[in-house]
């Protein structure tokens, strides 16, 4: 792997990082609008408002960058970067196609992904504390509580797949993947996806940013580009979560004509899952804080443990 190759891969990952979240955001604008009987943005860019998020970005860039006078300046300014960068790093290890179509093969890929995604939440905590605002603090508290509750089922569900494949590497898991893993790991997949939603603070698990209760949680005091970075982190998180679920539980590039069209399958599965994320946001009301905790500890953790037991039993039986 020479320097040029590395450069190309990093460029491709960066491009995906810059484009895919915007696509998801635009899809959310339009899909959510139509699900609510509206049409969404129609003007920016001419055709059905395709450039709405570009326009939003320009608007955010023009806004004044305000740091509250009572805030902890350094931490406040650092928080958006801490929230956003982990998702960029995670994208490097997600395999898009068979063989070489991955930014970098990491031996303990599953652990790497989950570890780095957990770091991203630190950004919300830093922002929540450093804003010197009670709503931000409440948002930060809820973020931390939610993260601690949902990290465990997510990890257990991912561990189930790793057990089934006998490896922690994402391309390795895909190489071992068979179609019948789909029903076998379906419970784990559901747990993983749900816990991921909660970790991203997406509705219906958006109590940490509940705008009708605590303004906008940890992001209350943010404006301009820094706020845009937090938003971008949320959508990058959707991309990463959808891609990870597709890779771990839906077989990634597996599908008809996988040897030539593998990457299309990965992108397609990711897109469908991203649509489901949007769909869930439109369909369900926000869970209360205690309901969120109850779902994690009394539903997801037992389900994930059951999945691990099932995986172990089947694994032993087929050997």
């Amino acid at each position, binding site marked *: 792997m020479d320097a040029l190759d590395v450069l190309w891969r990093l460029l491709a990952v960066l491009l995906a990082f810059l484009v895919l979240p915007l696509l998801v955001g635009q899809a959310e604008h339009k899909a959510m609008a139509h699900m609510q009987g509206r049409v969404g943005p129609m003007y920016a860019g001419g055709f059905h408002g395709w450039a709405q998020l570009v326009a939003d970005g320009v608007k955010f860039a023009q806004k004044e960058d305000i740091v509250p006078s*009572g*805030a*902890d300046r350094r*931490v406040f300014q650092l928080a958006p970067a801490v929230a956003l960068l982990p998702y960029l790093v995670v994208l490097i290890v997600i395999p898009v196609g068979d063989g070489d179509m991955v930014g970098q093969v*990491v*031996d*303990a890929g599953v*652990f*790497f992904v*989950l*570890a*780095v995604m*957990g*770091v991203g*939440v*630190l950004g919300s*905590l*830093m922002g*929540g*504390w*450093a804003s*010197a605002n009670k709503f931000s*603090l409440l948002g*930060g*508290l809820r973020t*931390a*509580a939610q*993260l*601690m509750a949902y*990290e465990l089922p997510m*990890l257990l569900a991912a561990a189930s797949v790793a057990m089934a494949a006998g*490896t*922690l*590497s994402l391309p390795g898991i895909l190489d071992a993947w068979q179609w019948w893993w789909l029903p076998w790991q379906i419970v784990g997949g559901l747990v993983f996806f749900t816990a991921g939603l909660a970790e991203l603070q997406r509705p219906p698990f958006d109590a940490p940013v509940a705008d009708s209760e605590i303004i906008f949680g940890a992001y209350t005091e943010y404006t301009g580009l820094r706020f845009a970075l937090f938003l971008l982190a949320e959508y990058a998180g959707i991309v990463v979560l959808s891609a990870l679920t597709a890779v771990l539980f839906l077989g990634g590039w597996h599908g008809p004509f996988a040897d030539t069209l593998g990457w299309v399958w990965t992108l397609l599965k990711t897109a469908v899952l991203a649509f489901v994320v949007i769909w869930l946001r439109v369909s369900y009301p926000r869970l209360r804080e205690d309901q969120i905790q109850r779902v994690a500890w009394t539903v997801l953790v037992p389900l994930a443990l059951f999945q691990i037991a099932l995986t172990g039993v089947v694994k032993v039986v087929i050997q």
Partner: protein
Amino acid sequence: MTLTEAGHGAVAEAAAHPGFLSPTGVEIVFVLVGLATLGAAVVTVTTKKLVHAALWLVAALGGVAVEYLLLTAEFIAWVQVLIYVGSVVVLLLFGLMLTKAPIGPSPDADSGNRPVALAAALVSAATLVTLVVDAFRTTWIDLGTTGRGSTRVTGEALFRGWVLPFEALSVLLLAALVGAIVLSRKGKAARPGDGHGGGGTRTSGHGRTGRDGEAQG
């Protein structure tokens, strides 16, 4: 554990010791990251701002993870990030937020037993350094041969050679878990119990009036 195994395997390689005078790039990076980690750790314990201390702890733990990576112990590195940065520090921050850590410096955070803490730190550091130096001495790990710290090697070492300590640790953690549950349940059960006791006295106290009321009714 990996290091000891590697150490046993690398005794033969120790003869071909490359020496410290012509450090490779990895070694230079290792030392630099180590210094940065040490600096972050020192700031962690000296800063007057509570949340800053927690965030510097993130830097220190991240530095340790990078050191693991440089030693090709990939799995350990990511677990370090996952557990310490992702969970332990989040728990710390959660606690700090619950206790309303102020934005500025908190002067009452200094507990006054600085010398004791310093002494304890120095003693434990000395013990650990002596132990590690004595255990490995001139052991040399050739980073070029991959797979020394890979997940597979770590897993096999953990579940073949070191399975007893692993299980002992599991039992310890399970005990802690059960203890936590018992504590939380006892607290919950005690309150209704207290309520019952109070209620009991109250009913006995109010019993007469209640009976009076019934009699009147």
